[in-house]
């Protein structure tokens, strides 16, 4: 089924802003409300919006299912790798081995930014992988 031209145009114009908002939520997770989970869900919603307004085939050409699967595993492996890196550098598991920095700046919080980015990538890929699996099970949107 094909959506109307208005919906397709609006979704296409809105897509970059939703992605930008998702990246903002992820990268400012330690400064303002938000974080990896919420930002990841916003990023996944952007892909779902594109798939609902356009067809699923067009969206799968841009965001391939294989790459999203790989990104999900990459996110969780990055999280565990960062945890073990703390052990190798002489701290506890998932301990903070980066300098804390000035409070309120984007570089403060040490490891938190990297953890948020890994969680965000993982959640975004996971939500869209679930959506792709459900659409494939049904055969259409």
């Amino acid at each position, binding site marked *: 089924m094909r959506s109307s031209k208005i919906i397709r145009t609006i979704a296409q114009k809105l897509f970059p802003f939703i992605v930008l908002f998702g990246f903002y939520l992820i990268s400012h997770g330690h400064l303002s409300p938000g*974080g990896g989970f919420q930002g990841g869900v916003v990023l996944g919603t952007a892909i779902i919006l594109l798939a609902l307004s356009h067809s699923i085939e067009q969206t799968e050409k841009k965001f391939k299912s294989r790459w999203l699967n790989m990104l*999900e595993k990459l996110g969780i492996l990055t999280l565990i790798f960062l945890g073990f890196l703390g052990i190798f550098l002489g701290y506890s598991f998932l301990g903070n081995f980066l300098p804390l920095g000035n*409070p309120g700046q984007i570089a403060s*919080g040490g490891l*938190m930014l990297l953890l948020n980015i890994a969680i965000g990538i993982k959640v975004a890929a*996971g939500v869209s992988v*679930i959506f792709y699996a459900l659409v494939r*099970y049904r*055969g259409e949107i």
Partner: protein
Amino acid sequence: MFKEMKKAFFIIIILAMTILFILSVDIEYGNPKNLDVANYYIEQGLYDTGAINLVAAIYLGYRAYDTLMETIVLFVAVAGVVFCLRGKR
């Protein structure tokens, strides 16, 4: 029939003992006097973790294990959905 009744009887006994044990332990949850941990987080959270968002300071600093396991839960959920819906077109 008899076996199942025996099993149900044992389960009921174990549940009742668990509930009695929980009720007998004298911990006052939500008592305003027992706020030491919360006060510690509020006072020392910024200096320990360097994040001005206290929620992030707790879920990525003090309780990062919880966040890691939550992420693994989502991973298992995605794996289960993909496994259950495989091969259908």
